[in-house]
Every structure is written in C-alpha cells, then in structure tokens.
C-alpha cells in the first residue's frame, strides 16, 4: 500500500511543529472547480442537523449516568495568596456531601507544563483551583464549597500588564521573567536611511473571553481500571494523554468521547483540571461524576485572548515602498506560562526587507491566556493595518495601492513561495463590494453629526493542515458507509464535510453515510480541532481512503464478474463492464457476493509539499457611521473577500464567516475583561456585564470567496476557514472609524467614550 513515514512541517496556532508520521503517497487527480463536482462545495445541510434542531443531540453537558454525582470547584477569591490552613471537616459532615479533594488529600499532579500542580497551595490568580467537592446534587456540592474553611497569606499582586512588567515577576507568581522574543531581518539602518517618511504609534488591545455557549464540563465513569471521559473538548487525544499521564494509568485505559459540543473557540483546546479532578473523585467514590464550570468560572479560569501593547514604526519612500519596520510589544499571559505574542502578521503580511521585532510575555495575577480564534493575529492585524493606513494617508496614497505596492510574493520568514495567494483578487473584490471609491479621500472630511467612513484590513493565517491525520471507512451490507476518524466536530461542520468527500468519490448518497468522530476508543488519530486545520488535514485522508475503497470495489467486481479490472469502470456508485454496460454490480451486490458484512479501508493525509508554505489570505472592508455627538459607532456593512482554497460546503462556510466577523466586530467595539486594579477582582463575570453580541449588533455582511482550489496544499484543495473570518474585522472597523472622523482610536474596544475623547482632544 502506498504509505510512507515522513518528516513534515505544520504550523499550528503560530507554532511550527515538526512531525514524523505516516502519510499517503498516492497522488490523485485534482478536482478542478466546484462546478465539476457533485457534492463537495454544494450547500449541503448538516448531517447532524436533525439532532440539533430536534433537541435530541446529547452534548457533554447533557450526559446523565446512573448513580452519577456532581462536582463543583472552590476557586481562589484572591489574586495572589498562599493557603495557610484549609479545613474541609465541616463540609464533609453534611448529608449528601460525599467527598472533598484538596492538595492535602491528593497526590501531586503536575500542571501547566510542570510549573504548578493540579492543586497548588500557591494561588496565583482569582480563580485558581483550591478544592473540588462531590455531592448528590450540584447545589449540595456548592454548599460544600461554602463550608470549606481557608486561611490565606495574602501576597502582592499586579493585574495591570504595564505595572507587572515594571515589577519583579518572581514576587508576583514565583516565575522568572519570560525571555524576550526577538526577530531581525535585513539591514535595519539601511532601510531607515532609504526612507523619506515614517509613522509611529502605539496600539492596545483588551483581554477578551471565549464564552462558548456550552460551559466547560466533563462526565467521567470508571469501569474497573478503565476510565471513560465525556468531555466538551476540541482535542480528544490531548485530553486522553493528559488524563492518563495525570492519573499514571495506561493511555488505552482512558477513552475520551465528544460527540456534540457547544463551541470552544480555542478555550477547549487543552485538557482542563476539572476533568482530572472529576476522575479522582469518581475513583474515590466508585461512582460516575459530572463536573462543570458555571458562567462566572468560564469568565475567570478557562483562558482568554491576551492583551497587547504594540508600538509599530514604519519607514518608507514617498512612492509607497516600505523600507523598514519595527515592532515592540508586550502582553499578559496571565498567571501561568503561555504565549501572548502578536507579531506574526507584522513579519509576513507586507513586503519589507528590513525589520526588527521585540515581543515580551508578562506574567500577571489573572486568568491564563489560551489560544482564542486566530491567536495573535487578531491583535496583530489591528495594529499593523492601522499603522499601514497611517503611512498611506501620510504620503497621500490610496491605502489599497500602498498594500499592493508592498505585496509579498513569497513568505518572508521562510523565504519560500506560497502554495497559493489570491490576496490581490480579494482586495479588488472587497473594494468593489464596499464601494471603496466612496471613502473620504481626506479622513474626517464628511459633513454633519453622523460621519461615515470606509476602511479595510488584510488577513493572513495558516490552516493548510498536515499529517498525521487518518480516516477509516467501513462499507456495509446494503452499501451503507461509515467514515471514522479521531478528529472532532466542534460545531463547524466536520461531520458533514467528511461525508461529502466520501460521497463525491464513492458516489454513495449522503443519506447512506454515517460519520463517527470524537472517540479515542474508535477513531484513528487525527489532529485537534484548532488552527483551522481540521478539514485540510482530515478531508484528504477521507479522500485517500475513499479512492482506495473504490479500487477495492473494482477488484471485487472483476473477480465476481470474471472481467479484467481494466475492462471495468466505476459509474455513479455502480461498477460496470466497459464493453457490456448491462453487466454491472451495485456496492450492495458486491458485499452480498463477498459474504462480507463489511469492507474496510484506511486512508491518510499526504505530506505537505516541499519548498512551499501554506497560508490563507483575505481582506475585509468596513463601512461605518460614527455619531460625533454620542460617540456611537454603527457598522453598516462588512464585505469579506477571502482566499481559502476550495470552499467545501457553502452553508457551513457562511456560518463560519458570519460568526467570525461578528466576533471580530464585538472585539472591535464591545468586549473587554475588566479587573479592578486595587483588589485584583474581575468585575464583569457574567454575560450581562461581559457583552457578547446579540442579533441587534449584526451588520450587513457580504462574503466573497475568491479562490476555487489550492491544488498544491492537499488532494481536496482546501485551506481552513474558521480563523481567517475573524482576523481582519477589527482592523477594518478601526480604519473605517478613522476614515470617518479623522482621528485615530488606538485602543480597542472602540467605545463611545473613547470616540468622544478623541474627537474632543483633536478639536
């Protein structure tokens, strides 16, 4: 079988990951445009749609087991403290309260890359785990938490990133200051000497919270020494490994299942402490345990998009050629190791031979950062595309012309070409959709109280996926097909798209295809669902398996009909003799003849092409109105033009883009975690105070896909779409606001008070 173990490079959430894995070496004919296809690319309805609209879909939060008990978690009320004394005896006396675990009665389990423990008596942020109680009901478990007595040694803290940067980090968390990240390219002083003009500014972005609608939760059950974990996760294999390592049990003694989940956006990309706590309690009690976080905990303890304080400077010639750029930023990772860097777009988006980058992660006494839909890029593009616009206006150039003037034909970090790049096409399609010519040639030059403006920003992301990623097919009696893979559908439509790929190749109707994902006990390995890599990694594995299944069916038909294989063709899900088309077999006939209940086939993702890098590209354009008396911003329209390779399903694509753009809009205008600096307490811990957008915040949105397929990236031609959708929205809105009022707001979210202050100061 043409399979091989190869070294491959993939970029996941901004990290370059070298993998050695099994790949398919089969080369398949490229599909061409979607118009040539029957199922892929069509607006096929979700195959899991019935379950979801009927209310019968069982999410992790809905998992109810016999004899199940409930667990809730006690969290630090203080931003920084050490536990002096903890007493759980009162809690344990109440009828119905079954168990309480703390650092005192559990083994040490390493957490956060060995920087801390599952229960660490050194509490580094408001929300750090102190104890976990199990009881017959969730209310009783919560009552238990209130009865736990804790005395604290309060310690100095900082929740303001700038102040934390100026303090001794070891006093705040006990951790050393993270190393400064630096990157240099070219001859910086030469770049400066070649320039005629320069612009410089500092941009800040807030901490924002994922807030998926389903809270983080697990239900766990032991059966002898075997543990089954239902978890609301984007990464079943990561959870399996973390749970097995934590409990020091074999990996194949842990099975992680996730069928349906209510969103994640990155917050569910890693194993949670709560899952391990539930497993410990379940083992001690001999009963299944359901554990969940409430909305307050969701806003404290399961990650966030870190803030950023980015100072950018651009030097260039009067003709628009950028000759040098510098970038200096810092951002808070929270109280435990994580990354907060936002400089990737700066290094690659626009052509510039001479650049300098410094990026500093900072520990503060607040919830730890986590990947959040296009980590780094959302912050980075806002700052980068703001300063690029400033430079364009300074030299009197159309902002799109400036971007075209500095168009990067190759990836400047790796110095290799892209598998595809249709950013120019995105610029022109988006400009047309928004009526680019109607923008104010001089920002702020419109008349009246309500001022209108148009702005845009560019997008770059990875999302080409890569190996290892595997899929299995099971073809059964009657011609029914099951596609099995160890990836997971986090709501994006993976179930449906994988079925479409198999349906395309094997020409089996969608109704006869079942897809099983999200079960480490069943599916072969496939990557976690993050980085917009799921479809670009797994769909090619499904195509590989389907093509091989097709060959198997042809060889079976040859044996049955006693015709050589080369005299047989596969036609519309039937296998027929070329010479005598009356002679044919259906898939069901073949299975019957073979007396097999099932035919099996494995498939794998091929290696990524050597000498290329894969990125998705795009541009979003915003049309806004700013009320200069109230400061209120109304987004009239967002036009989004993107190059994402092949669109696999028009319906799920629209969902992804609309949802991503709305998240980007609220990042630009509404969302922000607020902490009281004197107490270290987060003040907006519910969805009333932490605003996520409602239906009333939705602008007009136009989605234009400028790509048909990326034939180099993989055998289905797809690049990921989940993250591209959110990346340029805030930058486009910020530039549109500038175009409307002629004053730049350099800090997100752009709230009415900031608008009024800026206008007032300017006049």
């Amino acid at each position: 079988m043409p399979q091989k173990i190869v070294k491959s490079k993939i970029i996941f959430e901004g990290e370059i990951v070298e993998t050695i894995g099994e790949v398919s070496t089969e080369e398949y004919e490229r599909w061409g445009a979607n118009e040539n296809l029957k199922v892929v690319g069509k607006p096929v309805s979700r195959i899991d749609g019935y379950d979801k609209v009927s209310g019968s879909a069982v999410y992790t939060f809905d998992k109810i087991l016999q004899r199940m008990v409930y667990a809730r978690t006690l969290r630090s009320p203080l931003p920084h403290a050490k536990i002096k004394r903890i007493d759980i005896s009162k809690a344990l006396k109440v009828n119905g309260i079954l168990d309480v675990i703390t650092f005192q009665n559990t083994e040490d389990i390493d957490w956060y890359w060995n920087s801390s423990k599952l229960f660490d008596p050194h509490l580094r942020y408001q929300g750090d785990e102190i104890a976990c109680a199990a009881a017959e009901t969730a209310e009783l478990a919560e009552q238990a938490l209130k009865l736990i007595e804790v005395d604290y040694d309060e310690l100095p803290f900082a929740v303001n990133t700038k102040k934390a940067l100026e303090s001794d980090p070891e006093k705040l968390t006990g951790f050393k200051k993270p190393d400064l990240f630096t990157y240099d390219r070219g001859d910086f002083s030469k770049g400066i000497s070649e320039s005629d003009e320069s612009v410089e500014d500092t941009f800040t972005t807030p901490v924002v919270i994922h807030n998926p609608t389903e809270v983080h939760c697990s239900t766990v059950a032991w059966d002898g020494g075997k543990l089954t974990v239902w978890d609301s996760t984007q990464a079943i294999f990561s959870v399996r490994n973390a749970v097995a390592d934590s409990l020091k049990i074999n990996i194949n003694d842990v099975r992680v299942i996730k069928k349906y989940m209510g969103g994640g956006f990155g917050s569910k990309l890693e194993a949670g402490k709560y899952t391990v706590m539930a497993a410990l309690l379940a083992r001690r009690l001999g009963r299944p345990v359901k554990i969940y976080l409430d909305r307050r905990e969701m806003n404290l303890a399961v990650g966030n998009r870190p803030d950023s304080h980015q100072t950018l400077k651009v030097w260039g010639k009067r003709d628009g050629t950028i000759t040098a750029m510098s970038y200096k930023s810092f951002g808070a990772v929270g109280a435990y190791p994580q990354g907060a860097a936002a400089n990737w777009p700066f290094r690659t988006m626009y052509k510039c031979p001479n650049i300098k980058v410094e990026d500093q992660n900072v520990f503060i006494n607040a919830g730890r950062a986590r990947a959040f839909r296009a980590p780094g890029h959302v912050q980075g593009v806002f700052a980068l595309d703001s300063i690029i616009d400033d430079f364009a206006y300074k030299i009197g150039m159309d902002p799109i012309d400036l971007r075209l003037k500095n168009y990067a034909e190759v990836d400047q970090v790796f110095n290799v070409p892209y598998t595809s790049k249709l950013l120019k096409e995105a610029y022109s399609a988006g400009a047309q959709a928004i009526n680019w010519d109607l923008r104010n040639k001089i920002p702020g030059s419109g008349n009246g109280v309500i001022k209108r403006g148009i702005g845009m920003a560019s997008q770059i992301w990875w999302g080409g996926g890569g190996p290892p990623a595997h899929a299995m097919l099971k073809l059964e009696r009657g011609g029914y097909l099951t596609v099995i893979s160890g990836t997971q559908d986090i709501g994006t439509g993976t179930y449906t798209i994988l079925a479409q790929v198999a349906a395309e190749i094997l020409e089996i109707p969608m109704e006869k295809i079942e897809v099983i994902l999200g079960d480490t006990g069943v599916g072969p390995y496939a990557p976690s669902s993050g980085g917009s890599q799921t479809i670009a990694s797994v769909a090619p594995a499904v195509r590989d398996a389907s093509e091989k299944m097709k060959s198997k069916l042809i060889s079976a038909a040859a044996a049955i009909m006693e015709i050589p294989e080369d005299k047989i063709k596969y036609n519309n899900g039937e296998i027929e003799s070329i010479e005598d088309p009356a002679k044919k077999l259906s898939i069901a006939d073949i299975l019957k003849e073979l007396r097999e209940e099932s035919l099996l086939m494995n498939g794998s993702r091929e290696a990524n092409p050597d000498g290329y890098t894969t990125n998705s590209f795009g541009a979003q354009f915003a049309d806004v109105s700013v009320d200069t008396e109230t400061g209120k911003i109304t987004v009239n329209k967002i036009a989004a033009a993107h190059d994402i390779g092949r669109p696999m399903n028009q319906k799920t694509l629209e969902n992804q883009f609309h949802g991503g753009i709305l998240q980007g809009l609220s990042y630009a205008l509404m969302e922000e975690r607020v902490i009281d600096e004197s107490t270290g307490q987060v003040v907006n811990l519910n969805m009333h105070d932490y605003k996520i957008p409602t239906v009333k915040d939705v602008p007009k949105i136009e989605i234009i896909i400028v790509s048909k397929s990326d034939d180099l990236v993989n055998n289905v031609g797809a690049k990921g779409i989940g993250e591209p959708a959110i990346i340029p929205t805030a930058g486009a809105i910020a530039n549109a606001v500038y175009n409307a009022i002629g004053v730049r707001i350099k800090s997100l979210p752009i709230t009415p008070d900031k608008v009024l202050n800026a206008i007032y100061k300017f006049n």
Partner: protein
Amino acid sequence: MQMIAIEFNLNGILVKAEVNPGVRLIDFLRDEYGLTGTKEGCGIGECGACTIILDGKAVNSCLILACQIDGKEILTIEGLANSGELHRLQENFLKKGAVQCGFCTPGMIISAYSLLLLNPNPAEQEIREAIAGNLCRCTGYKQIISAIEESIVVNIEND
C-alpha cells in the same frame, strides 16, 4: 424537606409529580424527564439557551421553580416535532444553515415559535427583538433570521 405535589401539561401529556420546592424548572425537566434539549448556558437569565414555552409564552426555565408550574402548560423543544416530523421552524433552521454548534438552537427555535404564536407575520425588526435574549456565539445570527422569516405563514396554530 416538604415535597410539593404538582400537575401540569408537558408537551401535550398531563403529568403529576412531587417536587422539591427549591428545584429549578430547567433541572426538573432535564433530570426528571431527560428533556436535555433545554440547555443551560448561564443559569441567570442572560443567554436564553433554556427557553421553553409556559402557557404560550417564552420564558427562561432557569429562572422558574418547578413548583410554580402547577396547573400550567409546558412546551419544550422535544415537544415541537410531531411524531418524528420536524416543525416548520426546525426544518427551516436546518435548511437555511441556522445551526452551527447547535447549543443555542433549541432556545432560539422556542423563542421564534413563541413569536410566531403571538405574531404570525412579524417584520424583521420584530424577529430581531424576539430573539435578542438568545445568545449565539457561533453563527452571526443571519441564517437564524432567514430561517424564522422562511417559517412565517399566517395561522401557525393550524399546523
């Protein structure tokens, strides 16, 4: 604790139960009847995931106690389909791609159902108003609005 006896109509069936006075309606429906289509997103009336119909009106079941429903009529998402056949709203949510992760979907459909009960021919603004208390973090709402618009026919009660 003194249990309270209640009698109510649940998705068309008359049921009797004894409830603990402190139990929330959402837990009662989910834990006693396995009606887990009613979701919990916040527990404090902010997300709309737990929306059900109580005597013809959409309410947040996380804010109501089970003992308050004595003598009343409850409709949950599971009661909307008729012998396996989806209600027009459910059909259109599917067809229009108004579902992504699906966690907000039952609450969203129930809010839309209640709107159409009271106002069979709503304008887009009224649709937006009716689902403004239902948060969706995935879809961007556009397809949800079109699914509801697509479901408008006068005389929904004849369905």
